[in-house]
């Protein structure tokens, strides 16, 4: 596998994982600030170990057992389901229909809830550990999925995707620990939009390859597919802004 193909697995994995780690870091910070750092640290380590087991078993099994063409179709379909979902949500946010993800608001809500639960001064803080474990496990499940999808090209791609995700985790957690506040400066919707478009483009590319199709220029075709999704996104944002007045914002679950 050449360096370009490895970068194609590592870079999207890095960006997509960074979005998820930002969300997990917000919860861990809220737990740490209100209840101390020992419990969320244990919760985070336990969730990371759970995720490592999921990636090791599922990822390695899928990559090594499933035939190559079936694997490409399967992963292509999953990438499309996942990527177009992110793209749709990002377009709705850009159009002003769904509110932008607000880490500051989520952080303050979490801090208020954790304070309301009270803190036992003696013994291990089970609530703090559980909240951190659950946050890291849920956001990490998405990271695991991303890593497995981008690593489906083989053992080298899986390693590159794992490295990308770990690098994102280290960077985001280090930033969160250094700043001790939610990472509101991360342009989350732009990142989700970009990753959604890239995931969708790779999904089409791999699914068609799995069917035996050959793309002109091989992997360079991904750029043309990406351009098609970006054009559709631009049209969609303009269309939605024309359809709806300013301030026509609804809950994300309602659309």
């Amino acid at each position: 596998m050449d360096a370009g193909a490895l970068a194609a697995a590592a870079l999207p994995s890095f960006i997509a994982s960074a979005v998820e780690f930002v969300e997990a870091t917000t919860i861990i910070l809220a737990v740490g600030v209100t209840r101390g750092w020992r419990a969320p640290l244990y919760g985070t380590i336990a969730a990371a170990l759970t995720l490592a087991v999921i990636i090791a078993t599922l990822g390695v099994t899928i990559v090594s057992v499933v035939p190559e063409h079936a694997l490409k179709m399967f992963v292509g379909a999953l990438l499309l389901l996942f990527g177009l979902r992110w793209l749709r949500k990002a377009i709705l946010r850009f159009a002003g229909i769904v509110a932008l993800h607000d880490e500051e608001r989520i952080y303050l809500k979490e801090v208020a809830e954790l304070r309301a639960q009270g803190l036992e001064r003696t013994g291990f803080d089970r609530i703090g550990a559980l909240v951190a474990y659950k946050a890291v496990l849920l956001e990490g499940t998405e990271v695991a999925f991303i890593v497995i999808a981008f690593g489906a090209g083989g053992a080298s791609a899986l390693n590159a995707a794992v490295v990308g995700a770990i690098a994102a985790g280290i960077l985001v957690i280090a930033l969160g620990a250094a700043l001790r506040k939610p990472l509101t400066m991360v342009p989350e919707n732009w990142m989700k939009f970009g990753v959604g478009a890239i995931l969708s483009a790779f999904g089409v590319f791999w699914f068609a390859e799995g069917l035996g199709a050959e793309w002109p220029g091989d992997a360079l075709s991904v750029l043309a597919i990406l351009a098609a999704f970006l054009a559709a996104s631009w049209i969609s944002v303009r269309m939605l802004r024309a359809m709806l007045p300013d301030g026509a914002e609804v809950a994300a679950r309602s659309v």
Partner: protein
Amino acid sequence: MSSLKAVWETVWGLLVDDGSLAIGIVVALGMTWLAAIALGDAGRDQVGWLLVAMLVVLVVVNLRAAGGSVRRRIS
């Protein structure tokens, strides 16, 4: 057990946040598969572009429907 349930719900939500979009994607993939079989070796290289076209239309139509639904709700 509740953690496993939460993980399952996350995975499910990860893929099918919007049911109609997910169904549309699966239908587009199925039609692409059928097209690859029907066209044979001669036309198989074109099915990728067919899939791109179907998905682009799907995204725009799905979002138009979402926009229409919101407009009806607020009017």
